[in-house]
């Protein structure tokens, strides 16, 4: 317990050092960073997470439990990788004088990736359907879950 508190205190100091560095960059810089710090949390907690609840409701309503695993896996992989590809998909940083930067057809790449994910998901679904259901049966078929 004492080691935990001690290491935790070191963590506080490390974080405080970062805050000190951040404050040293000036007021305007701090304010601009705070927009992004707060914006990221707000976008995640109140936009993305709420949207995911909607997606989960839809998946539970549409996809039978038996094949839900591979479908959800496909959605998680494609969704998260699409999110991190936003800067290249939008090519926001492209520069007219530098053709070596962002020099791929990223939307074509996305389509290829999406097809591969759909293919992998389909293989998973088919395998689920071919293997007999395992585990104890769920008598009502509904362990009621408001979300996935």
């Amino acid at each position, binding site marked *: 317990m004492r080691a*935990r*508190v001690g290491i*935790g205190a*070191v*963590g*506080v*100091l*490390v*974080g405080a050092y*970062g805050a000190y*560095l*951040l404050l040293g*960059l000036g007021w305007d*810089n701090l304010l*601009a*960073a705070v*927009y992004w*710090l*707060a914006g*990221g*949390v707000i976008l*995640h*907690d109140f936009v*993305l*997470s709420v949207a*995911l609840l909607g997606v989960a409701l839809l998946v*539970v309503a549409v996809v039978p*439990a*038996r094949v*839900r*695993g591979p479908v*959800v*896996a496909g959605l*998680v*992989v494609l969704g*998260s*990788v699409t*999110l*991190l590809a936003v*800067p*290249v998909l939008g090519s*926001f*940083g492209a520069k007219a*004088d*530098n053709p*070596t*930067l*962002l*020099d*791929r057809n*990223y939307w*074509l*790449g*996305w389509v*290829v*990736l999406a097809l591969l994910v759909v293919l992998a998901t389909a293989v998973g679904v088919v395998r689920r359907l071919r293997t007999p259901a395992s585990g104890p049966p769920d008598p009502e078929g509904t*362990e009621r*879950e408001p*979300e*996935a």
Partner: protein
Amino acid sequence: MRPRPPSERDFTSFLRSPAVASRVGLALGICFGLAFLTGLYSHWQQNPDAWFPPPTRPVWGYRLTQGLHVASGTAAIPLLLVKLWTVYPKLFAALPDLRKPRAALLNALERGSIAVLVASGIFMLATGIANSAQWYPWSFTFRLTHYALAWVAIGALVVHIMVKLPLIRGALGADIDSTENDRPGTAHRASGMTRRGLVGTAYAAAAVAVLSTAGATVPLLRKVSVFGVRSGDGPGGIPINRSARAARVTALATAGDYTLVVANGDREVEVDLDRLTSMRRHTYDLPIACVEGWSAQGTWAGPRIRDLMALVDAPEGADVVVRSLQPSGPYTTTLLPGNFAAADNTLLATHLSGERLSIDHGFPCRVIAPNRPGVLQTKWVARLEVRT
């Protein structure tokens, strides 16, 4: 029924469990740790007044560490999304009883530390991935703000791990489907996706994230990395970070009267283009490894910086200040530490892949040294001088 705000117990999924959070969190913590350490290394590399300079070997050192930096940050994005999903109900946990001030204070501190961790964690990953694509939709200074918040994020992560340590150990020690550490109200079995399946999916998404981007630095992945910021093409087989036009240097670099000045105190020697290209030329295979995470190996040729500095009898191992023709910009003047200036394979390159350097690669000459960030491989060199 009256509408009411959501509470923690409204989230019943079997998957939103410490069993999943701790496993995905472990991988996420490793990614954050790796990104932090390689980031510190990069910061040290870019700090000209470090207590001691970085080593010149291995030549691919910075290529590896900066590639790992961007790859670990990229892998962390899917892991962080899954991790936050599993713990999302905690956002709606009941507030503590204010009549018990000690418990209320501890709770406030814990929530505060998590708010700092989530905010700085998302900030680090979002700004990092945008920077790798040279997208700067903000007005703060990227490098220093990213660096400062790295300390905030890693400090908050250490606090978070220490606060949660008993729960983490319990969850990692128990079977993944064990419900003993679950929040009250959590379902007792999976309905569709299993816990093992979700953890595996998070790892798979992290792997896909890395494979789809790392081709910008790993040649073998070039065809696979559909989201790589560079395909690897460019003059002489090397991409360009900043063009001559963007640096507003084209006229100066192509002027007929270009001369390189080598200086040691009052002593100056002017080296014109003919003399520069007729000096003994050495050839080395060296990577250009950019802070944004892309890299490429080139065959560079030109006189050794050491031989140029010998023209003014510079002392062996002296630090060299490199000045570029660029009229402005943060890397117009850079410092080449003495150990780099003295190295056999630190060149003032005039050729790439057997051809004269192109204007965007730094014509008439550029610094190319082993184990260095690309921003310090100064292009369009005007002057080399012994640091006094």
